[in-house]
């Protein structure tokens, strides 16, 4: 990375007259991603039962585009970890996270997934952020379906703040390349 980076014209900056293009591209991409977060329900314990209520008719999580649960990580964007993760389960969770293609987000639903809950003992991982990066934490034991919906909306707001173009440039820089001029 010895060359000075060549910032292409389409990136946002104060002096760039064409930056509206990248913000528009970002806006479209983020709109698409935030409104179709396909979930992978990594359901282990009681929080999963509230998730079942969430998916049923009254709370209807499908409104957010999380329509059908694809029980395969390769086709999902959103990893919903609901329930306690034990040390036996930890390698499984790690492998599932690694099998997901980016863009991927993780919601730690419930007290056990966020911090280990009140199971402060030899077998419980004190929070899944010890294993995988987490985007949104939901408190509750178990959290109400409304809390899940609030978390989904917060995640949507977080997604809308992402920038596809900046991320792409950062990844290319990490690899020692530049965007074509």
């Amino acid at each position, binding site marked *: 990375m010895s060359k000075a980076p060549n910032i292409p014209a389409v990136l946002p900056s104060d002096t760039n007259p064409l930056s509206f293009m990248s913000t528009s591209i970002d806006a479209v991409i983020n709109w698409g991603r935030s409104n179709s977060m396909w979930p992978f329900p990594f359901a282990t314990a009681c929080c999963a039962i509230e998730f*079942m*209520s969430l998916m049923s008719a009254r709370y209807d999580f499908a409104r957010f585009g999380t329509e059908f*649960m694809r029980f395969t990580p390769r086709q999902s964007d959103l990893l919903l970890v609901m329930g306690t993760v034990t040390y036996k*389960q930890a390698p*499984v969770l790690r492998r599932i996270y690694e099998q997901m293609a980016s863009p991927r987000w993780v919601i730690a639903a419930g007290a056990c997934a966020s911090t280990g809950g009140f199971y402060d*003992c030899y077998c419980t991982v004190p929070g899944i952020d010890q294993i995988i990066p987490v985007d949104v934490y939901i408190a509750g034991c178990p959290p109400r379906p409304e809390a899940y919906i609030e978390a989904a909306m917060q995640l949507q707001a977080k997604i809308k703040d992402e920038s596809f173009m900046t991320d792409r440039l950062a990844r290319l820089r990490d690899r020692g390349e530049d965007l074509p001029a």
Partner: protein
Amino acid sequence: MRVIDKEGEKLDLLSVNIGPSHPATHGSLRAICAIDGEKIVAASCEIGYLHRGFEKMVERGTYQQVMPYTDRLNYCSAMLNNIGFCKAVEGMFGIELTERATVIRVIISEMSRFIDHIICVAAALADLGAQTAYFYLFVPREEGMNIWEKLTGARLTNSYARIGGLYRDLYEGFEEDTLRLMTLTEKGLSDVLGLVDRNKIFLDRTQGVAAISQKDAISYGWTGPCLRATGVDRDMRKDEPYYGYETYDFDTVVGSTGDTYDRLMVRIYEVRESISIIRQALKRLKPGPVNVEDPRVSLPQHINAYQDMEALINRFKLVYEGVHVPKGEHYDGIEAANGELGFFIVSDGTGNPWRIKVRPPCLTQFAAFAHLVEGAMIPDAIACLSSINIIAGELDR
């Protein structure tokens, strides 16, 4: 892996994991199977993916602090676990509950039981592909959770029972809400039965699938609806009645062949029996106290604690040191939704439990899983798994 089977035929088997992360494993279970095409020829199961250390956690607090941990055992019917634990502790004291508390515990037990059965049937049918049944059956479930929220403050893990009684009395309007819930449940069940009762696909997928004989089921320690599905007419509410169950008029639902169909149908008809028990119990409700007036277990009233020194000290000691359960070892169980849920309590006379062992009904059912699915196909294994109603919280504790 290549093997030669009993007839001398060469087979090429594949070893495949069902679980621990699988759409149809309710909770995290793992069965590693050797399959020949779609047929499972050998299976070996592994549990412990949700082992949260219930038995170690409860040794750190007081007896009252065990209550939230018991909720999370069988989280679909949380209040049954609470009642089971309280019954075991009250058995060590030898105290009798008040009449109102007894009737309310019966109502709450039966309500939790039929909601657990509804969830089991809904999930089982969804696993078989009948997704509509899931939505139809979750309507009464939501109604039930609304009632529980009004009654206890929580939708799912309620911690309603207390040693010596209950958290609080019923709210005004409970009876109307419960009657409406039962009407909704009956409607939902009849809708679902209309969908699957004579549905050829359902019958083909469940009849004759993963059957177990009475002798094997008893050897595996099965109790509850799964045992009754094999034809064994044993129910703790009938054989060793408690809380006045001998005075209620209900039948035990017994199957004949012990296959998946029988296990699901036993649960569906048990919902109807539970509804009938609740209707009878609601008529027996009479005003009265819900907590027994025993200073060893029940907290004195707040107003007394403000005026009377003994009540203040009693309250303080009960909360701070816990209920001093008499020294000894005692086992007591109740007929929970899945079978006999028991608690073996070892007490050293202080308010801190020495050892509490949960006897989980799900463990016995899942121990037989390898025996049930060998010789069946993978889809049959899924149907079987959902019919034995494994709740991982109870299985692994």
